[in-house]
């Protein structure tokens, strides 16, 4: 029996912990033992093929080393890319942490001695393992640079296979967009696929870099991820299993970018993947993460592109995608809508009766009876059944059915569908591509007046996206802000004050449709200066969370409402703390392409110490000029026994 998604994904909304700032990727369970086993067996295979020692008589290793030194190969970009060397203030260091990857005892820190050891290893007699098989990429480059063939080459079957593979291979960079309901994949992900005519499309091999963990305890997962206590490995799976994971289960649209690598470059990439088999690097959520390490597979093909350079502190998948795009790797792109995107598109084209029919079928009523109950023409029937089958799969992934229920309902719909021969190809239009979206860090210079005192505010947001920023490449209706910090200067009083530190500010405004009703939610925590009675501005620590629903009135106009909880900490409060239930409503508008508007009203009734009501009203209008620049106007009101107001205009610059 297998009409079943056995991996059921938990769509439960999750809240993000305070200290986990930038988490990027998905984590796969990949037991070490698999690699260990594999590594062992590779060596065993090679033992059978015994190489004659005489073949090495003519090779002068010292001479090769001298040649390499005279050509300064150890300083070359290619060598540094192959060994993942990086220079920082403490010196040169390879980002690979597995000792197996190095031949020289100080190889991790010394490109020169590692090169020497590599040449010695590749061109010397060895009856234990085939050096060329172990370091194919290093060898194929050195062979060209030194003009020397190692006798091991012909004995390395794997290398021969790759070289003699005549079919055209192509590489795609895959970008599943962010998944806001999981902290680990909020920022999207990148992977590569390799395909040929034998395994095109869904059958292609997906090359993925991920941390090796089966940790389920959140805080320790976050801690270990941030401090590099996991090991990251490359793994390979059929692409369809990734499509199921991202598109079907997590409702993430996928972008597929065909790269313009030539066959030699693809081979170099394959060699390097082979070299990295069973080799780990310490995994860091912030920088040495899935997207970053994937860049090495491309960098070894074209070291001049410097793909892995110029990142500071964190690497966000969309930034790596943009880097690859700017370096001229991309030939063309395709959009693969997720199941929910497809359902949304289908629903937009259905009438009310059709929607009712779908709901009724999904409840388990006999599809034939349902269809006959309405007077649908053939085309309408096909639309109903096609949408119903997608919807039923969605509901199963959302755990609304038991496996048995799902199987029966699903197969009944398909049996009826197979009696109708009309075919419709559904292709939801592609949104603007991610690489055209804004850069993910931003600086904001704001001029305005608070209670008629004019000020200038400077703020810096390391990452990532605001509801009023241009939505290209980002999950629409999502806001993900980490670590935004702001300081303000008042011209009249000539004082500088610390204004705000948004540690986490995440909002998901996901409109419901007649079939799918996602929860909209938010969690905001950090320090903020708020006006209170007697004209005192208090720098409070706040936690504000909420949940509710959003509605799309048209595709450019959304309305949302949430029930909230708010907590404030400050010395001046009676018990140092105030807590409140509250509610908020808001509007999001995009009247035309580059213009985003937001109106938000929030009312909280604090009642832990002193009871008081607090109202916040925010209006934002932002004009997004391009990837780099935006203008923004804010009008804010606060009410605590009296009204306070603030008007401001900002200039925004996006970078990295």
């Amino acid at each position, binding site marked *: *029996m*297998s*009409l*079943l998604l*056995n*991996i059921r994904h*938990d769509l439960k909304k*999750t*809240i*993000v*912990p305070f200290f986990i700032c930038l988490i990027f990727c998905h984590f*796969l*369970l990949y037991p070490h033992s*698999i690699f260990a086993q*594999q590594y062992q067996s590779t060596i065993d295979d090679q033992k059978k093929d015994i190489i004659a020692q005489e073949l090495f008589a003519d090779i002068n290793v010292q001479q090769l080393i001298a040649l390499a030194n005279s050509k300064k190969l150890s300083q070359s970009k290619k060598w540094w890319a192959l060994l993942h060397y990086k220079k920082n203030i403490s010196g040169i260091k390879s980002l690979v942490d597995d000792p197996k990857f190095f031949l020289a005892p100080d190889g991790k820190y010394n490109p020169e001695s590692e090169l020497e050891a590599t040449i010695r290893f590749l061109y010397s007699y060895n009856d234990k393992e085939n050096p060329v098989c172990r370091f194919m990429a290093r060898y194929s480059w050195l062979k060209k640079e030194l003009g020397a063939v190692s006798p091991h080459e012909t004995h390395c079957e794997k290398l021969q*296979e790759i070289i*003699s593979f005549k*079919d055209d291979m192509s590489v795609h960079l895959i970008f599943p967009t962010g*998944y806001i*309901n*999981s*902290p*680990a994949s909020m920022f999207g992900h990148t992977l590569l696929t*390799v395909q*040929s005519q*034998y*395994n095109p*499309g*869904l*059958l292609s091999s997906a090359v993925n870099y991920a941390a090796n963990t*089966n*940790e*389920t305890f*959140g*805080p320790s997962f976050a801690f270990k991820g941030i401090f590099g206590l996991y090991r990251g490995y490359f*793994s390979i799976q*059929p692409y*369809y*299993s*990734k499509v199921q994971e991202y598109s079907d289960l997590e409702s993430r649209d996928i972008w597929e970018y065909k790269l313009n690598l030539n066959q030699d470059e693809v081979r170099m990439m*394959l060699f390097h*993947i082979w070299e990295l088999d069973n080799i780990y690097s310490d995994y860091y959520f912030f920088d040495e993460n899935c997207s970053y390490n994937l860049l090495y597979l491309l960098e070894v093909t074209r070291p001049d592109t410097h793909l892995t350079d110029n990142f500071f502190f964190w690497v966000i998948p969309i930034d790596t995608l943009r880097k690859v795009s700017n370096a001229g790797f991309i030939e063309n792109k395709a959009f693969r809508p997720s199941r929910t995107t497809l359902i949304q598109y289908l629903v937009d084209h259905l009438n009310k009766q059709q929607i009712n029919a779908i709901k009724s079928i999904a409840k388990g009523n006999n599809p034939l009876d349902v269809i006959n109950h309405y007077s649908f023409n053939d085309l309408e029937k096909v639309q109903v059944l*096609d949408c119903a089958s997608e919807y039923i*799969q969605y509901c199963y992934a959302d755990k609304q059915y038991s496996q*048995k229920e799902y*199987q*029966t309902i*699903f*197969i009944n719909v398909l*049996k009826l569908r*197979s009696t109708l*021969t009309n*075919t419709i*190809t559904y292709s939801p239009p592609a949104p603007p591509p991610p690489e055209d979206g804004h850069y993910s860090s931003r600086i904001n210079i704001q001029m305005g007046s608070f209670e008629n005192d004019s000020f200038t505010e400077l703020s810096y947001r390391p990452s990532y996206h605001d509801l009023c920023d241009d939505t290209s490449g980002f999950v629409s209706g999502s806001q993900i802000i980490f670590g935004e910090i702001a300081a303000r200067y008042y011209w009249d009083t000539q004082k500088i004050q610390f204004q705000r530190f948004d540690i986490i500010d995440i909002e998901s405004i996901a409109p419901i449709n007649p079939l799918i009703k996602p929860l909209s939610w938010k969690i905001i*925590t950090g320090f903020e200066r708020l006006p209170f009675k007697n004209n005192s501005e208090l720098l409070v*620590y706040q936690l504000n969370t909420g949940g509710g629903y959003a509605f799309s009135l048209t595709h450019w106009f959304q309305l949302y409402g949430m029930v909230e909880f708010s907590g404030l900490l*400050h010395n001046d409060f009676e*018990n*140092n*703390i105030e807590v409140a239930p509250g509610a908020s409503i808001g509007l999001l508008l995009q009247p035309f392409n580059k213009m985003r508007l937001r109106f938000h009203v929030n009312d909280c009734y604090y009642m832990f110490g002193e009871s008081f009501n607090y109202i916040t009203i925010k209006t934002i209008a932002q004009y997004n000029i391009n990837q780099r620049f935006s203008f923004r106007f804010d009008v804010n009101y606060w009410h605590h026994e009296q009204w306070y107001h603030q008007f401001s205009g900002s200039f925004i610059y996006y970078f990295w």
Partner: protein
Amino acid sequence: MKKGLSILVLFILVAATSIAEAGVAKQNAGCGVGTMIFGDKDSLVFELFAATTNGCFGNQTFGMSSGTLGCAPMKGVVSNEKINLYVADNMDNLAKDMAKGNGEYLETLALLMNVSENEKQVFFTKLQANFNNIYTSSDVKSTEVVKNIEVVLQNS
């Protein structure tokens, strides 16, 4: 202020524990996926991949009882195994495409079965018309599906 701090810590802990169920690890690969998908001797590059994905992670994905996802190493598998595995791993989406008479999963099946470009439409139509004979019940196994497809194609 001390009290304030301790409450701050409480806030953090509440937020932190809730990540426990966040999307952490998901096991994806079925048992021996690589061996079979890429194990075809004609396609050497996939040998390369097969070696890296060869392993047993437990019967994970869709293959509840399909029998094709066994943990025993598959050496020199015939290409039929490739089809078996593909069908086992994509039962649901393939069934949907088959009932509709078009779609990417059906195209991929045609490719695995070496259906030529000009025979494809006939192939799709035939499978759609015989959907009931292929996906015979709600708990049909993927190996039966493959067998049924063969029967349908032979009987015509």
